[in-house]
């Protein structure tokens, strides 16, 4: 079954977290179902879910009835997604903010591949821009590399000042 991840779920680690939370939720859901079937009125509190997990479950619930089987199916689908999805790494000059992450993930899923996963990290020496790594390929579009590449022009400009 095809899954559409929220943009806030970007990296494999995010999917792992999602799977863990859904797993917890599925266990809770199973227990609560047994209690309902057994006529036990005492219920336990629902596990606290993160917004992406909540969004994911809501989306899933629109397509499938919520059951232990469908939740297991969701977890399997997420694990399969994790295995098959291409992953790119984006290195920025500072720790990524949520808004920046969402925008970049959205762009990647619209323009590169719909199922792409994005790992973020930062390196302050980049000064700005970004470095994209996919497998053995590295695309360096950072300010640092641009400055270094244009060091000759830089000295020319300095001479003309």
């Amino acid at each position, binding site marked *: 079954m095809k899954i559409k991840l929220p943009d806030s779920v970007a990296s494999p680690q995010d999917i792992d977290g999602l799977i863990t939370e859904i797993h917890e939720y599925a266990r809770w859901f199973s227990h609560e179902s047994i209690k309902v079937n057994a006529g036990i009125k005492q219920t336990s509190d629902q596990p606290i879910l993160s917004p992406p997990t909540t969004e994911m479950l809501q989306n899933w619930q629109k397509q499938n009835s919520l059951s232990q089987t469908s939740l297991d199916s969701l977890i399997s689908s997420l694990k399969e997604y994790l295995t098959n999805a*291409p992953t*790119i790494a984006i290195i*920025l*000059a*500072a720790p*990524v*903010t949520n*808004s*920046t992450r969402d*925008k*970049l993930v959205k*762009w*990647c899923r619209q*323009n*590169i*591949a719909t199922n*792409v996963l994005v790992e973020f990290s930062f390196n*302050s*020496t980049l*000064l*700005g*821009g*970004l470095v*994209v790594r*996919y*497998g*053995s*390929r590295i*695309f360096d*579009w950072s*300010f*640092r590399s641009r*400055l*270094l590449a244009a*060091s*000759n022009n*830089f*000295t020319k400009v*300095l001479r003309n000042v």
Partner: protein
Amino acid sequence: MSLTFLQAFLIINILIIGILIAIAIRHLLAHLRPQPEEHRLAHSNENSIKLPKEVKEKLLKTAQINFQTVLDHSASELQRDLKITATQVNHRLEKLSQQMINDEMKLYHTSLEELRQQAEANIKAAQVEIDNHQAELKSQLATKQAELEAEMRQEVAAEKQSLLEQIDTKLADAVMALLTETLGHNVDLGAQNAYLIATLEEHKKDLKKGLIDEN
């Protein structure tokens, strides 16, 4: 040739002097040994005429005086001839030696002149050779100097360029370090969002191609 002539002349002179000395000795011996003749005359006189003792003594004395006179005269003649001969020989020798000296001097002068001319020619040739060599050396020196100057100019230019590049590199490194130090801690990603998206848009094809190639 003059030496041979002189030798011949001297030999002839010695020969003449020898002949004269031999004649004089012969005369002297003839006068000093009159006895056989006197004996013969005495015998003949004894055989022919008997002269008184006073006459004999007188004749003998007269003969002795005459002989002495002839002998003196011959000796003086011989002495005079010897003097003349010696004078002539001396004169000849002097003349000959003078001529020899003149000839030798002339020859010496000629040889000296030849040597001088030869030395002069050699000196001129050597001077020409030295001038040529000097000109060649000057030419080589000028060429070498020009080459060295050109090489030095190139080296100076290269060194200058190298120093300029080093300065540029150092300057760029310094500015880079300054930028890194200044901007590294104050990066606003929010302000870079548009730039980041624009960069990704710009390299969208590269990213897609990378994904396709890796898969």
